[in-house]
């Protein structure tokens, strides 16, 4: 028995749910959280995205330095952003399949901020309706 915690973009919630159904996993719990990842050490990775955002954000009222500072902090991982935390309980043998499905649904071209998947061991589970425990309680 494993617990899969996947932290994904808010926008990708629908796609993640669809991917889970396609992988044969219908049950999940989702919470709205705030998250941030590792700091971007190589500025090259966010360069392309930064230029794109800067070209969108500039107008006659904004000062170049301010906008750039904001966009950089937006991309380099120093600020918290809304994310969706999925918690999925799974049998051991289904874990690789679920990870693959979630990772595929959430991969974007941005290079950073796509989320993380954690796999934790679970010692027991109980279904409230029937009282059955262990592997039978998962699905």
């Amino acid at each position, binding site marked *: 028995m494993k617990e899969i915690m996947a*932290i994904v973009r808010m926008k990708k919630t629908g796609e993640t749910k669809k991917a889970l159904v396609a992988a044969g996993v219908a049950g999940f719990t989702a919470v709205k*959280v705030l998250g*941030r990842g590792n700091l971007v050490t190589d500025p090259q990775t966010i360069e392309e995205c930064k230029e794109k955002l800067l070209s969108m954000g500039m107008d006659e009222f904004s000062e170049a330095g301010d906008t750039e500072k904001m966009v950089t902090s937006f991309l380099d991982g120093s600020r918290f952003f809304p994310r969706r935390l999925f918690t999925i309980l799974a049998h051991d043998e289904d874990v690789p399949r679920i990870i693959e499905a979630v*990772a595929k649904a959430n991969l974007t071209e941005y290079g950073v901020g*796509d989320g993380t998947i954690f796999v934790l061991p679970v010692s027991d589970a109980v279904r409230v309706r029937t009282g059955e425990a262990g592997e039978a309680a998962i699905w």
Partner: protein
Amino acid sequence: MLLIRAIVRPEKKDEVLAELSTAGFNAATMVDVVGRGKQKGIKIGGMVYDEIPKTLILMVIPDDAKDKVIRMILSIAKTGKEGTFGDGKIFVSPVDEVYTISKGTPGL
């Protein structure tokens, strides 16, 4: 790798996260939660408040960083010299696997 679940006072979260970030543990997730501890909440006059707002901070860290991170959270999240009821708790659980989606490889 280890998952750290730290329940701290909401007013302490910024300080805790800033300190962890400067120490090199930038990645974190936080959720606003409500809960009570073994004091069964707070009793003020005749009212009992047993859903006290706290912030739950989730972090996955390498095994060898455990002591450092825990000591850091403890020192900042504690209020007063002796500590106060309601300062929070830290839970540590094992993590089997970690995948970073954008990199497509296992690992933090």
